[in-house]
C-alpha cells in the first residue's frame, strides 16, 4: 500500500498561479535562475533589506521590512512636480468635500498589494504602502510582510503612523483596500485605525472629474492622461501575488523590487491626483480646465450646500463644451428648481430641450418639468399640453406613460372648462 503522501500526490493538483514561472517582461537582470524555483533548494542568502534598500524593524521575536523613500519638491512625475502639488501650510481648505465630512489637512495615502482579490481570511496585504506630504517633500513608507508571523507587528506599526493623521486617501479603498485591511486587523484581534477616520476614495472623484462612464478608470491610465507619466517596465497587477509567493517560497526578494516600485508609483499618482482635485475645489470654477472638471466640482459644491458656487460651475460647464453640456444643464435646472428659482430653471430646461444631441431621458425630464411649470405656475394650458404630447413620443416605462396620459386628460378637462380653444402656441 502506498504511503499517504504518495496517495495525496495523486490527488492534489499543483496550484496554478499567474506568471508563477517568472515575470514575462522587464527586469530580467533581477531574476534568479528559474531552476531555483523549488522551495528550500535555491534559497537566496542575500538579505532582502539590501536588495530592496530597506531596514528591518524588530518587534518582539518578529521582524518586517520597512522601505523609506522621499521625493524632493523638484521631483517630477510626468509633467507634474511635487512642488506643484504641495498642500498649503494649513492644508487644503475644501478637502472635506472630497471626504464627505469635514476633516483636517494631515493626509495618509494608502495603497495595498495583496495575495489575492477574492477576499476572506486567506487574502492578506503583504505590502502596505503609505505616503504623506511633509515639509515640502513627499514621503513613502512601505511595510513588507516577510513572514506571516510578523503580520500583527506590521499592522501595529501601520496603526502607529495612521494614529496622528486626519484622513486616509485611497484609490478604490472603499470596496477593496480598507475592508481587506480591516479584516487583517480583526483577524489579529486589533482595532483598525481606519474605522472612523474620514476617507477620501479618489476612484469615485476621478470618475466624476476626469472620466466619462465608459472610459477606463485605472489609476495608471489617469496617470498617463492627466499627469503625463508613462511607466516603463511596470509589473502587471495580476503577476504581483505570484512574485510575492515566490519570495515566500525561496527567500529571494529580487522579484519584489518591481512590485515595490509599482506601489510607490501608485502612491505618487494618487497623491498628485488628490492634490489636483483639492486645488480645483479651493480655487473654484475659474481653475477648471475642462467642462467635466467644472461639472464635477459643481456637484461636490452642491453636495456640500455651496449652492452659488455650484450654480456657477454648472453654468460654466454648460458653456464650455458640448460633451457634458446636457448633464450640466440638467444639474443646473434641478438645482435652480430646488432653490425655487423657477423662471431660471425653466430657461435651463428649455435650453436642454433645444439641444440637438440631448439624450432622451433628459428630454423626458425637461419636457415633464416644463409641462408642470406651464400648467401650474404659468397656467398656460395649451403649452403644457403640447409639451406633454411631445414627451409621449419618447420611449418610456408604462407607469410614466400612464402619468403623462393622465396629465393630458386633466389638461383637456381644464381646457374644456376654460375659454374656447386657443390656437396652439407652437
Amino acid at each position, binding site marked *: 500500500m502506498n504511503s499517504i503522501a504518495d496517495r*495525496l500526490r495523486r490527488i492534489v493538483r499543483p496550484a496554478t498561479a499567474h506568471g508563477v514561472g517568472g515575470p514575462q517582461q522587464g527586469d530580467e537582470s533581477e531574476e534568479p535562475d528559474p531552476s531555483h524555483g523549488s522551495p528550500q533548494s535555491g534559497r537566496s542568502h542575500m538579505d532582502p533589506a539590501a536588495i530592496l534598500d530597506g531596514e528591518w524593524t524588530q518587534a518582539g521575536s518578529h521582524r518586517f521590512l520597512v522601505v523609506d523613500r522621499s521625493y524632493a519638491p523638484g521631483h517630477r512625475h510626468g509633467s507634474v512636480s511635487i512642488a506643484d502639488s504641495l498642500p498649503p501650510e494649513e492644508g487644503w481648505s475644501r478637502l472635506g468635500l472630497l471626504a464627505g465630512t469635514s476633516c483636517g489637512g494631515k493626509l495618509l495615502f494608502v495603497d495595498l498589494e495583496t495575495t489575492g482579490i477574492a477576499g476572506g481570511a486567506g487574502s492578506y496585504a503583504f505590502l502596505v504602502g503609505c505616503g504623506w506630504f511633509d515639509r515640502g517633500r513627499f514621503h513613502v513608507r512601505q511595510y513588507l510582510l516577510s513572514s506571516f508571523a510578523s503580520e500583527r507587528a506590521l499592522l501595529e506599526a501601520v496603526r502607529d503612523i495612521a494614529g496622528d493623521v486626519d484622513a486616509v486617501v485611497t484609490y478604490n479603498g472603499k470596496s477593496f483596500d480598507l475592508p481587506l485591511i480591516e479584516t487583517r486587523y480583526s483577524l489579529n484581534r486589533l482595532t483598525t485605525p481606519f474605522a472612523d477616520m474620514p476617507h477620501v476614495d479618489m476612484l469615485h472623484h476621478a470618475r466624476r472629474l476626469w472620466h466619462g462612464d465608459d472610459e477606463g478608470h485605472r489609476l495608471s491610465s489617469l496617470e498617463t492622461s492627466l499627469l503625463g507619466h508613462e511607466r516603463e517596465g511596470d509589473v502587471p497587477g495580476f503577476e504581483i501575488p505570484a512574485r510575492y509567493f515566490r519570495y515566500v517560497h525561496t527567500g529571494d526578494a529580487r522579484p519584489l523590487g518591481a512590485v515595490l516600485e509599482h506601489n510607490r508609483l501608485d502612491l505618487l499618482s494618487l497623491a498628485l491626483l488628490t492634490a489636483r482635485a483639492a486645488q480645483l475645489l479651493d480655487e473654484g470654477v475659474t481653475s477648471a480646465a475642462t467642462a467635466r472638471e467644472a461639472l464635477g466640482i459643481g456637484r461636490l459644491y452642491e453636495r456640500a450646500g455651496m449652492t452659488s458656487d455650484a450654480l456657477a460651475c454648472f453654468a460654466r460647464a454648460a458653456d464650455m463644451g458640448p460633451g457634458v453640456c446636457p448633464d450640466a444643464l440638467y444639474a443646473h435646472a434641478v438645482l435652480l428648481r430646488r432653490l425655487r428659482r423657477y423662471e431660471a430653471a425653466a430657461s435651463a430646461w428649455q435650453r436642454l430641450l433645444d439641444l440637438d444631441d440631448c439624450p432622451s431621458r433628459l428630454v423626458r425630464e425637461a419636457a415633464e418639468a416644463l409641462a408642470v411649470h406651464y400648467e401650474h405656475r404659468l397656467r398656460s394650458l395649451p403649452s403644457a399640453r403640447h409639451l406633454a404630447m411631445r414627451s409621449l413620443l419618447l420611449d418610456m416605462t408604462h407607469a410614466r406613460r400612464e402619468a403623462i396620459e393622465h396629465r393630458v386628460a386633466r389638461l383637456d378637462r381644464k381646457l374644456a372648462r376654460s375659454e374656447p380653444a386657443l390656437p396652439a402656441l407652437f
Partner: protein
Amino acid sequence: MPPEPQEATLPPQQVDRVPRGVSTKGGDPALTLVLDRLTGGAVERPDSPDAWVTAVRRLPAREAQFGGDVAGIDDRLRDVLRERGIQGFYTHQAAAVAHALARHNVVITTPTASGKTLCYNAPVLSAVLRDPSTRALYLFPTKALAQDQLAELHTLSDQLSRRSDLEIGVFTYDGDTPQDARRAIRGRAHIVLSNPDMVHSGILPHHPRWAKLFENLQFVIIDELHAYRGVFGSHLTNVLRRLRRICRHYGSNPTFICSSATIANPRELAEALVEQPFELVSESGAPRGEKWFLFVNPPVVNQQLGIRRSYLAETRRLAAEFLKRKLQVIVFAQSRLSTEILTTYLKDDFEGPPGIRDQIRGYRGGYLPQRRREIEKGLREGSVRAVVSTNALELGIDIGALDACVMAGYPGTIAATWQRAGRAGRRSGRSAAVLVASSAPLDQFVVRNPSYFFDAAPERALINPDNLHILVDHVKCAAFELPFTTSEQYGRHDVQEVLGVLQESGFIHRADGEEGGDGIWQWTNESYPADAVSLRSISSDNFVVIDMTDGSDVIGETSFTSGPATLHEKAIYLVEGVLYQVEKLDFEGRKAYVRRIDCDYYTDAITYTKVTVLDTFIADAPGSHGEVHVSSRVVGFKKIKFYTNENVGSGELDLPEQQMHTSAYWLTIPATVMASLPFAPDDRRDGVVGLSFAMRQVAQLLLMCDRQDIGISIGSGNEGDSPDLTRTGEPVTLSDEPRIFIYDNYPGGIGFSEPLFAMDDELRRRTRDLIAGCECQNGCPTCVGPIGNTGPMAKTVALRILDLIGATHGAMEPSA
C-alpha cells in the same frame, strides 16, 4: 404508467364486513371503518407474506410524561411558554434542556411532532436572555427548514422582547440573503439560521467579519442529523472541524445540540460528526395517540414474470378510502413524476363535489415557496384534505398532524419510513400509516419480512471524514482561514504530511518558528479554496446539462462518475417528466448539450467495469475487504420502451475510461464450489450474475445508502486477467474463482466496505432469504434480475452457490 387492472372496490372478501376487530372506543369511527376494511377485522394476526396485507401492527397510545422543572430556564421564557399553553417540559425536553444548560453536547432522537425544537430553543433563548452577548448557530440541511424555524423563533422572540428590553435578533443567512443585509445580520444576530454549505463557503472563510459570533458562540444546533451520512456527512465533519478550529482562535467552545430521526447509531453519528462526546436522549415523553401500521403488497397478476399490480394504482385506491371518509391524508410518492400523477388521479377520483378538487394538493421541491407555505397552512388549518408529496415533507416542516399516511413505495430506509409515517399521528386519537410496496427488490424484501422493519434496529449512518479527497479539500480551506501550526492536528491522518504535500504543490509555505517554537504554514495562493468544494458531492468536477431548445439554459448537474453513463450522446435525460436528448457531450469541458424531445423510450448505458484488487485489508473467506482500482468505460447503450420495458434499439459509444481507487467488499466463490455446480457453464454464469444482482439490493438495504453510492462488478480481481471485463454485471467469461465486488462508488471510498464486511454473514443470509422467498419462478426484477437478462436457471444456481458457500463455511443456516 403500466396499464392498470381497474377495480372500483377492494377485494371482495374484505368488503362490507361488519367492523368487529378494531375497537371504536376512543378512536375515530371513520378511521376504524377503513382499518377494518383493510384488515378484514383480523387485528392481532401473524404476518402473512403472501397476503394482500402482509402485516398489521398496533402501536399503543401513550400518555404524556412530564419531566420536572429545569433549573436555569429564564423566568421570562417560562412565562411566554405558559402563555402559549405549554405547562411543562416533557421528559425528553427536560433531559435535553438540562444537558444543554450544563454545557453537555446532546443528541435527541424523538419522533415527529414531539416538541423537539423546544429542546434547543429553550436553552438558547435562556442563555441569550441571561447574557445578551450569547450567540447561537443553527444548521439545517435545507433552506426551507431554516425558513420554517425562522417563523417559529420570531414568534418566541417577539413575545420575549415584550417582556425584556432585549431585541433578540434571529436571521437566516444563506445564499438568498441580500448582500446589503449581510453586514447588519453579522452585527445584530443572536441566532443565525444557516446551512452547512453557507457556513463552508460564506461564513468560515470570512470569519474575521463574524468575530462577534465566534467570540460568543455558545451553541451550535444541528437539526436533522441523520441527513448527514455518506459524502455529505463526511464533508460536514470537516466543516465542523474548521468551525471548532476558528472557535478556538476566538476563545469559544460551543455546545452542540443535535436532533435526529430514529437511526441505529445517533450517538455514534453525532460523535463522528462533531468528534466530541455526546449525551443521548431517545425516550420521548410526548403524548401519542394509537397508531396502526399496515404493509400492503399489490397482488401478483403475472406469476411467471413476477409482475404485480401497480403500486401507484393501489396507493390511489387506499388514499381514496381515507379521503372519502373525510379523513385528512398525506401520500408520499418516490419521485416528482409519481407525485404529479397521484395528485391528478386523486383529483379525478373526487371530480364530483365542487371545491373538493382544490382540497387535494401536490407538494414537491420546485414549487414556489409561496405556494408551499399556502399548502402547509392549509394542512394545518384543515382546508387541505389530502397532499401528495415527495420526500420534501418528510423533514420537519410544520404541517400539523394528519389522520393517515399512505406511502407509495418503500422510502429506502427504516428511518425515513418512520419519519414519513410520523406525519400522520395526533397526540390523542387514532392514526394510520400504510406502506404500499412496489415491485422493487427492496420493497418486496421489506413487505415480506415485516419484522425486519418493525423489530430490527434502524439503519446505521456511516461517514468517512478522512477520505483523502475530502480531507485535502478541507485542509486547504482551513489553511486559508487560519494558518496551521507545525504541531497542529486535524483529523485522523497526520495533517502535517498533508500540509507537506500541499507545500510541494505551492499552496502553502512552512515558516519556521523562533527559538524552537512552532512554525506555521502560510497560505500562498490567490484562490478562494471553498469555492472549489461542494459539500454534496465528492468532487466539484461535475458535468452541467445545458438545454439548447430555446437559447442555452443550465437545467441540471451530474457527478463526474455518473456523467458518461447518463449524458452520453443520444442518451435520454429526464427532468420532472420532461424528456431531453443529449446532442453533444463535451467531456473535457464537462458539458452536455441537450434538446427537448418527444419519444417513448429511455436509454440505459452499457458499462464495462473492471476491478483490480490492490490491497486486501482483511480476508475471512468467503468475504474480503480491501482497496481496489476500478476502471469503467461506457461502450454502448440500449433504448428501452416506457411501460413495456422492451429493448427497442441500441448504439455503440466510444468514451474515455474512468478510473478510481476506492474500497470494496468482495465475495469469493471458491473454485471448488464452481466446479461442483451441476450446471452448464452458461447457467453457472447466470447464477453468479443473478447472485450479484440480489446482493446489491441487500447491501443497499443494510448500508442505508442510495443506489448510486455503491457499484458492483464480477471478475477475478487479478491485474493480468484482461478478459475479465464485465458488462453491467454480465461477465463475458467467468473466472475459475469469480469474485463479486461491491465497491464504494466514490474515489477514496466513503466507508461502506468495512461495515459490509462485518455484516458478511447477514448479507448472504438476507440475500438467500430474498431469492428463496420470491414468488417468481425463474427470476424477476425483485430477486436475481429480470429473466431476459439472467437466463432461466439464475435463481436455482444462485441459491445453490449460497448454500454451498454456507456449507463450506458453516456460517449459513439453510432457510426453510
